[in-house]
């Protein structure tokens, strides 16, 4: 990597990471398959399937009906602001054909709510993405400098931006919870998983937009420092980004110095190692600090954003473009022209296969995401989503069979899993407890700190699907927790009802007792004074007595 040394030499912008993360693995990268070709745009599909949710209910309000005409970028689902959801826009001009449950690639392969749109764009190639704009000449779109944080966050919310690194967490929510707590923006450009190169390529071609997105984000959350974390296997991207930052600093005088203070920007290069791109791992690499268990990075004054997300932030805030497409790495040995493509959300896999003449005849499934954390999808009608950063079409036996034998061989306690765990868990203890379903022990062993990076499974000599066991245990524990809560709630409701009934009964008893007493008293009076004369005389005597007392 003489190239990298050259870039870092005598630079006060670029430096090497001073910290390390424990564990980690070095799988074959397969990145050169797709990171050498310029970005292209995939032709629009005839029909697009836009997933409306990732769970069993839609959080938000549907804006269209079957038969409606929609245009590219038009809002079709307005998310409720208080939920962890984001707006969804139409990725094309067209007509809403169906609103129904479809297989949208959920790991459970259960069908989820989606909208089917038949596109009728006059120019199917157009996707509305502008060429990269250089910062210095971009004087017209600097409204964001005078915008308030809330205005920027609201714009990001409107544009439907989510974390494009893979987790798809709503970006506006992340910004909102970071407001006032954050002094450092860390840009995640690590892209540590094999095959995936979309962030690398985006940095090679559009780093000025990403940089601007980072400035906007820093401004929105009040960060005075921006750190780009990137692996040393992306020398072109680093060089390009460095040039952009250098020219930005030189052009600092173009900015209104009174209203805007340019954050301190640095590029930090880390040795390529999986999974250094995990949010917590990246923070540890760049700052040497660990996010406390059960807390968010904001606790340390840090906000982490992926480069593709920042690109979308720039598009939304500067160019007013809603998020309807993303850069997707299409790769694997079945793809004649592997590379990175702008693909509208909702594009079915089958359309990608047709447009790129992919030889998919023999492969039973593709992988959405990378080979370590991705999802296998065998239904080729499944569409791309906001979280789809890579699709692997590969005929490699291992990628296809995933060593799912009937029964793996026994754990030999070699401890390999432990030595590669980036979180310093004891994967083999977790395995024993998962296998014997000892849920309490699992929680004691910090099962929920597992980031499911798959490093342990990658090195396990007994080929035990460890992460599979952890996923099972996690979902089982969550299910039991929910069940417990539910039954506790039911118990509480039952107890409340019992109490309420008892109270009503007691009140009724009391009332009955009082009336009975009154009746008894009346009956007693009646016995002693059958016609009421006695009491009348008594009353008259009392009146006279009162009068006398008043006179004297």
């Amino acid at each position, binding site marked *: 990597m003489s190239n990298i040394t050259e870039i870092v030499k005598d630079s006060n912008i670029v430096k090497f990471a001073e910290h390390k993360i*424990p564990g980690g*693995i070095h*799988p074959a990268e397969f990145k050169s398959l797709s990171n050498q070709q310029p970005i292209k745009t995939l032709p629009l599909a005839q029909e697009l399937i836009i997933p409306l949710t990732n769970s069993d209910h839609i959080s938000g309000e549907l804006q269209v009906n079957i038969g409606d005409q929609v245009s590219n970028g038009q809002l079709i689902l307005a998310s409720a602001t208080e939920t962890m959801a984001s707006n969804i826009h139409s990725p094309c001009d067209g007509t809403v054909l169906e609103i129904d449950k479809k297989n949208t690639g959920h*790991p459970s392969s259960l069908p989820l709510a989606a909208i089917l749109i038949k596109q009728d764009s006059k120019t199917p190639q157009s996707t509305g993405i502008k060429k990269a704009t250089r910062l210095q000449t971009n004087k017209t779109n600097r409204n964001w400098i005078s915008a308030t944080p809330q205005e920027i966050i609201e714009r990001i919310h409107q544009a439907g931006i989510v974390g494009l690194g893979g987790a798809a967490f709503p970006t506006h929510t992340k910004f909102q919870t970071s407001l006032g707590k954050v002094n450092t923006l860390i840009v995640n450009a690590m892209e540590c998983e*094999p095959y995936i190169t979309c962030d690398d390529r985006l940095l090679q071609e559009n780093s000025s937009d990403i940089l601007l997105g980072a400035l906007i984000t820093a401004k929105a959350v009040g960060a005075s420092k921006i750190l780009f974390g990137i692996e040393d296997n992306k020398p072109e991207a680093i060089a390009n980004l460095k040039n952009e930052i250098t020219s930005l600093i030189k052009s600092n005088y173009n900015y209104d110095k009174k209203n805007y203070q340019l954050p301190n920007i640095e590029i930090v290069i880390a040795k390529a190692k999986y999974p250094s791109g995990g949010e*917590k791992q990246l923070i*540890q690499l760049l700052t040497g*600090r*660990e*996010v*406390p*268990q*059960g*807390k968010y990075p904001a*606790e340390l004054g840090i906000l982490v954003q992926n480069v593709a997300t920042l690109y979308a932030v720039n598009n939304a805030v500067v160019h007013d473009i809603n998020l309807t497409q993303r850069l997707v790495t299409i790769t694997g040995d079945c793809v004649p022209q592997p590379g990175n493509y702008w693909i509208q959300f909702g594009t079915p896999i089958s359309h990608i296969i047709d447009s790129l003449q992919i030889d998919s005849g023999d492969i039973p*499934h593709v*992988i959405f*995401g990378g*080979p*370590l*954390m*991705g*999802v*296998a999808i065998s239904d080729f009608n499944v569409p791309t989503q906001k979280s789809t950063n890579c699709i692997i079409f590969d005929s490699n036996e*291992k*990628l296809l069979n*995933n*060593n*799912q034998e009937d029964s793996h*061989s*026994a*754990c*030999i*306690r*070699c*401890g*390999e899993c*432990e*030595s590669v765990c*980036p*979180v*310093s*868990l*004891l994967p*083999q203890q977790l395995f024993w407890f998962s296998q014997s379903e000892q849920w309490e022990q699992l929680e004691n062993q*910090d099962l929920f*700190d597992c980031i*499911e990076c*798959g490093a342990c*499974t*990658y*090195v*396990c*000599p*007994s*080929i035990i*699907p460890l*992460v*599979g066991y952890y*996923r099972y245990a996690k979902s089982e524990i969550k299910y039991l927790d929910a069940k417990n809560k539910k039954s506790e709630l039911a118990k509480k409701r039952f107890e409340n009802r019992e109490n309420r009934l008892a109270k009503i009964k007691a009140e009724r008893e009391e009332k009955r007792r009082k009336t009975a007493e009154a009746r008894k008293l009346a009956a007693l009076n009646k016995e002693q004074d059958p016609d009421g004369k006695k009491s009348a005389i008594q009353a008259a005597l009392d009146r006279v007595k009162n009068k006398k007392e008043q006179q004297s």
Partner: protein
Amino acid sequence: MNLSSPFIHNDKTTSRIMLLVCSALIPGILVSFYFFGWGTLINLVVCSVYAVSAEALIMWLRKKSIAKALSDNSALLTGLLIGLSFPPMLPWWMSFIGVWFAIIIAKQLYGGLGFNPFNPAMVGYVLLLISFPVEMTSWLPSHEIAQQHPSFLETLQITFVGTTSDGNKLIDYRMLADGFTMATPLDESKTAFSLGLMTSEIIETSHFITNTNSWFWLNISFLVGGLLLLANRVIHWHIPTSMLLGMTITASVLYLYDNQLFLSPWLHLTMGATMLGAFFIATDPVTASTTPKGRLIYGAIIGFFIVIIRSFGGYPDAVAFAVLLLNIAVPTIDHYTKPSVYGSQTRENINA
């Protein structure tokens, strides 16, 4: 079919690891063959056959796939390790008892590979050592100082029948040129110490020096194999390093205390089963500690006990005893050396 990530693997499977360990024994096997003759090879073949057959038998009884169990090569490795630790020309039926006990009682009765708390090879070795102490310590002298060196046929005859066609017995091959018999240097020094000799007197005798030479090269050859394992990342550095360090420190303290009553650290490191133990026995993944800190503690205490038992115990060598002793301590060591999970330190700091 329900596929879940990850989809890739580094191809280092159990059977490959075991095979790599087996092949790393080759330098040691060759050197042992050079100094002690055919007995070494016959031991290895006999013990491997016993080990694999015992494993197959149990798999058959447990109605499990024999091919799958044998393909992990763990039984083969146990057989080879036992074969190397038994003295050459040990009667065939003793090897049989040792190996079958190791595989069936120490390994399979606990549930097979991955479930045995004790190192099977060492259990088999210790069983024989305690039951047949004379035979188990009747090691051949190196061929340079032996009166006569057995041929292949003679070795076979001694192992399986007890006498050669010429009427020679094992004791005849253990005779030195000067008519003395001699066991291993450790055994020799143990006996000498008990007779009241001093270290300087023991190490000066000429056949002690020659015999030391063969054991030195045997240890070097296991060290070479062990370094190959380290270079191929089959084993971790923690256990061998800490074990050798533990031995060095303990032996140094004793030697500095009285250099006429104890052997030097150098002799401890280069004699007996030190290197075989450090790189091939103590590193057995199933029975060793699994946490990085735990491995250091585990190795260091094994090293400590090897020197202590060698110096004060009743048997000349102590690798097997020390390893078994620490095997039983592994759950405790692992419990107290759990690494701190990401973010747990900071959580405590914040709470404090």
